[in-house]
């Protein structure tokens, strides 16, 4: 699909943190939320999410507990920790700086030099 973009390496963790920062979610919910907030533009491989969850939990950025979903299914819910919030802020700034720099580089025209 032309509307979808490939994920850059390292951006999956950032997207997960962002998605969870908007409220506790289970794994499938995070998948949906990423699609929703990216306007269905970013494609995440479903299975690849889970190793990322475990990695983030181990790094202390997320915490997980079992609960019940809206339609009464048992599911594991993820929540941002304080360290996770700090990391999200730092990575967001870093990403924005990078994006701005790349955008300005790409916007360069001969006249502006």
């Amino acid at each position: 699909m032309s509307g979808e973009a490939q994920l850059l390496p390292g951006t999956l963790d950032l997207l997960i943190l962002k998605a969870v920062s908007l409220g506790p979610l289970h794994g499938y919910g995070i998948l949906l939320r990423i699609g929703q907030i990216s306007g269905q533009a970013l494609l995440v491989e479903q299975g690849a999410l889970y190793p990322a969850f475990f990695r983030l939990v181990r790094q202390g950025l997320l915490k997980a507990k079992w609960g019940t979903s809206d339609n009464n299914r048992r599911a594991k819910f993820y929540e941002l920790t304080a360290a996770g919030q700090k990391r999200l802020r730092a990575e967001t700034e870093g990403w924005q700086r990078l994006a701005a720099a790349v955008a300005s580089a790409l916007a360069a025209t001969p006249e502006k030099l």
Partner: protein
Amino acid sequence: MRLFRRVPDDDVDEELRSHVLLRADDLERSGLPRDEAERRARIELGGALRYREECHDAAGGTGLESLLQDTRYGLRVLRKAPTFTAVAVLTIALAIGANAVVFAALNAIILRPLDLPDPGNLYSIHRIVGKSAAQSYPDYVDLRDRNTSFDGLAAFNFVIAGFDSGTNPLRSWGIAATGNYFDVLRVQPYLGRLFHADDEHGPNSASFVVLTHAFWHAHFHDDPSVIGRVVQLNKHPYTVIGVTPPGFHGTLLFFSGDFFVPLVNQEELTGTPFLAVRGDHVLFMALGRLKPGVTRDRAAADLDAISAQLEKDYPKDHKHAAVTLARPNLYGDYVGGPARAFLTALMLLAGLILVAACANLGSLFAARAADRTREIALRLALGAGRSRVVRQLLTEAMLISLAGGALGLWGGLIVMRWLVAWQPFPQYPINIPVNPDARVYVAAALLALASGLLFGAAPIRQVLRTDPYTVVKSGPRTTVERGFSFRDVLVVAQIAICAVLVTASLVAVRGFMRSLHAAFGFEPRDVVLAETILDMAGYRPDQVAPMQKRMMEAVATIPGVTSAALVDWPPLATGGGNSPSVYSDSASEFTARTAAASVLQLRVSPSYLATARTTLLAGRMFSEHDDAGAPRVAIVNTAFAQKLFGSAVAGLHAYFRLDEATRVQIVGIVETGRYASLTEPPQAAMFLPLLQAPSSDTWLVVRSSTDLSIIATAIRDRLHHLDAALPVTIQSWDQGMDLARFPARVATVSLGVLGIMGAMLSLSGVFGMAAYSVSRRMREFGIRMALGAPRKSIVSAALGRALRLLALGSAAGVALGLMGARVLASIVWQATPRDPLVVGGVLTVMVLLGLLATWIPAQRALSVDPLALLRQE
């Protein structure tokens, strides 16, 4: 952080399942039927198994988790190559087993101290020429009372006695010890009491006997009421007063006797007075406990000063060398020296076996890793870290080395149990206490781990060099290696080590074979020996000679017996006899310093030399008329003549003196034989007629032309007929020489085993390398053959390298082995490396091994079918 942080599989599975259900709910809502929705959801999620593994990794599945993974994978890989695994495990098992046994022996004999309180400050005292620990009793008393360095000085001696507790009399060995013996050693009784210094009140004043635990267990069935009972030792009554703790059998490692009696009572047991004889070094060993803070050197200097004073006071009886102190358990350097040297050498050789096995397995593993280049490259390409791949290979090596180590240790324990139970000499209470302890297990485990790391590390460089992309694209390289690779060095080293072992074992075996067929100065074949100790059976000195005459006459008439004689100690069959000093005829002073020589003395009946087939070179044999009433005569050997008269044939009819009053004429000269040990230098010896120099402890020497066991039974019958209560020990002279041959036999057997192991290792090493090089170049050979290359050039291409390495390794090994064989000469008689047969033998063995090892690979190389091979590609 916890080492083992395992996310339960259930947890991951449940989360993935929950994901599938939630996704299916959504799909169902969009109109799909439920089962189709779940199927679709599952497909969308992809390989759950893979994600599960990744989740474990992501959750920190390092450490034990990945170790378990590696182990599982390693087991799978090894199970797929059963031959390789079996060969590798057996190789390492042999090497670890050999090391475990040798180390256990080293540990038990050299490293482990005596099992007594504070064994570190117990020392034996060696102060006469030849490093013997023997002392005379008066000297011992002076040393004990005058020294300022020891907390106590004890001494002991061996006694052999008829032990009669009312049932059947036993011939048993014991220790006659000074009263302070148990107190110096700090031994506590297991039962009853032990004897002490205040039990001694002069000669034969303390008729007490203390039993060892083993003897009490075996002959009194742990009966505590034995305390207080009176038993007969050589027909003298002794009261049993106690039992020593289990495991205590004196201070000598190899000797385990049955009982302890006070030394002051030894005179009545052996019939020889010695308590007041300063010149007679009867005591086997004096040993003592250093006072706290006294160094070994200071104690030796202290004893030296006393010795010097004794020498001044008693010049007639005294001659001493510098005092040395040694560990008492191995009789100082006398046994300890050769034992230590031999065990150290053996440990070294066993270590070499292990190194050779590691080199062998290292090259096999490297070859295997090369064959698995594709697999390794694939794993690297799929994102496995190189460290993870190396870890995987190391895990496989570890699995093999641990399995091999366990198997080897198990085999080693069986050998050790057998060694402990082994009584090499039925007539002596000697055994080899090779009991394994924790140290042995730890050493075996460490060796297994270390060797696993060692040979597992061989392929690491190769893995690190692997470039996944080129390998996956073009397949493993099939280029011919030029120059020497690391693997070649391993093979050469291994073959060299194996050649050393083969050389050493051939040198030993050859020396041993020669020692069996050497000239001893007598002919031990077809001779039965029967020992009787008449005073032990209650004979008075004046009854001894007539009884001995009757015994000789009784056995001489047994059918098949060609001659019979008496000797007080048959050469090479017992530890050795007395070596009194002799003086030249013109001597006016008779002190130890003025003695012409110290010579072995054999007391014999007239027919002994003829019966033993000792060649008379000049003069005459003894006759019945050389008795107590006749002038003293002697027959001497050529070494004696050489020493006293300067030439091997001089001195016939000359005189020498045994002491001031005893002038002896030499009436015959015989060849010089071997007397105490097979490796001894020529020893001066003299033969004296038993009638002029009586002894109640003699051996009947019976030569016969029939089966020795029949003769032995007949001798027992005849002697029983003469005196039913007389204990007799019967053995063939050949058997009796087992003790003399023992060091050579042990050396030969152990080196032979190591040599065979070495040969097997080099066989498998060369085979592995040749087979590998052939299998790698099969395609090349196919092409060559298709292009018409002659078979000879194929074979030389296939095996030339292997054979060159074999030749190089063998040459290095033989050179090293011949240098090392010099050490052997001190243990195995006539072991000489400069023996064409040995050199030839080693070369033949190595060539045969080479041919054997390369035969199958060569056949494989020649059987290449070029068409089939090229089709496969």
